[in-house]
């Protein structure tokens, strides 16, 4: 990289890109669509209608850098991986420009500086196609529906949420509370027994209660911990179950209807 020729260093901010078509937003969406630097490269190669085994590296590198610069201008967070690829392209480009070593025999195999990149692109493209295949499969699958709930599902439905889910939600709230600068209000410490009592009343009055809402009512971490334990305890001891409507969705405490 050190012998990198002067003309291949770019100022990302000053160079203008000519590829701007339509509104910025449109382009933003388009640029955001690239799943990574290899994806972008494949797109550029196809746009140039270039042969992947004989990539016009100077042209493609220029185009690539234009895109990256544009992404920067449009405030699109550029993954470090895009920059790494830019550096690699520049390196390949400079290697291609180096005069041939005269000591090397004419017929001797000289490794093409592009070879490694070509291999990676070909490998990547397979998985890109596989991703498209998966997309089609899941689209078809979304047109098929399983049966609705039947009575016997209920007997089995203990809890659909895992500890991981609950802990995730709990952690989220603790983190949020930590950020909030709160007036230190001295209030009577609420005991676990009282917390369970009020929680029970609310669930049984309303039929169900959002765990998230309940946690958010707490004024400090100590109360939050008490509230958390109260939830666990009430699920364990009372005819209350935890229901989660979707993975990582809100968890609801629900009164279990007595079966006749």
């Amino acid at each position, binding site marked *: 990289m050190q012998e990198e020729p002067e003309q291949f260093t770019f100022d990302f901010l000053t160079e203008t890109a000519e590829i701007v078509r339509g509104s910025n937003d449109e382009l933003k969406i388009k640029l955001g669509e690239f799943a990574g630097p290899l994806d972008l490269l494949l797109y550029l190669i196809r746009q140039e209608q270039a042969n992947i085994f004989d990539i016009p590296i100077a042209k493609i590198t220029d185009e690539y850098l234009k895109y990256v610069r544009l992404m920067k201008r449009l405030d699109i967070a550029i*993954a470090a991986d895009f920059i790494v690829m830019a550096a690699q392209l520049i390196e390949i480009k400079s290697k291609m420009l180096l005069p041939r070593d005269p000591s090397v025999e004419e017929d001797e195999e000289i490794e093409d500086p592009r070879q490694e990149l070509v291999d990676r692109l070909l490998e990547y493209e397979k998985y890109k196609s596989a991703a498209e295949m998966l997309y089609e499969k899941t689209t078809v699958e979304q047109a098929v529906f399983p049966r609705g709930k039947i009575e016997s599902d209920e007997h089995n439905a203990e809890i659909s949420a895992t500890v991981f889910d609950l802990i995730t939600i709990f952690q989220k709230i603790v983190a949020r509370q930590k950020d909030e600068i709160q007036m230190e209000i001295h209030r009577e410490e609420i005991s676990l027994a009282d917390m369970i009592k009020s929680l029970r009343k609310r669930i049984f009055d309303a039929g169900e209660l959002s765990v998230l809402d309940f946690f958010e009512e707490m004024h400090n971490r100590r109360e939050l911990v008490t509230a958390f334990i109260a939830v666990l305890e009430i699920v364990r001891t009372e005819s209350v179950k935890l229901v989660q409507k979707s993975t990582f969705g809100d968890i609801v405490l629900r009164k279990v209807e007595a079966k006749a």
Partner: protein
Amino acid sequence: MSETATEIKETSPEKVARSTGELVALVEALIFVSDEPITVRTLVEIIDDDRESIEAAVEALREEYDGRESGLQIREIAGGWQIATRTELHETVRKFLKTRPSAKLSLASLETLAVIAYKQPVTVPEILEIRGVQSASAIKTLLEKRLIVTKGHKETVGRPMQYGTSKEFLIQFGLKDLSELPSIEDFEDLVN
């Protein structure tokens, strides 16, 4: 199947000979009540008949569903059998359930999932190698959606966690098993 059934094979004395019709009815009822795809093995265990007869009953049931102008289908998925609505009816069904097609996975997540599906068990650095871009947030999404699971540590420097696809993956992508995925080499031909 009926050949073996008529044989001596009287190991369990309570076992009563069942007609094919009865077996088909039992198989249908069990596939229906099961809240996830039910395996032939479980069917054999519960109905307590020989595997061949059960398999024939499943097949007969499937043909029956295909034969009548039905709103439902019997299908093999994630290693088991399931009853589900027919694809053609999705518009009306969706209208009733008021669901929209669930949030599509991002391109990054789909690519990551493709790499995991084909390379499993695979580590984060290996995925990076193929995709050329960090995949942490995609992996997190896939874990949250339970499409992938951890598959233990790889015995290499740093003992990175390995990932593989889950049963949920098979269900959501309508696959019987992983072997139903086209080979990755098939995509190579497609590309060039």
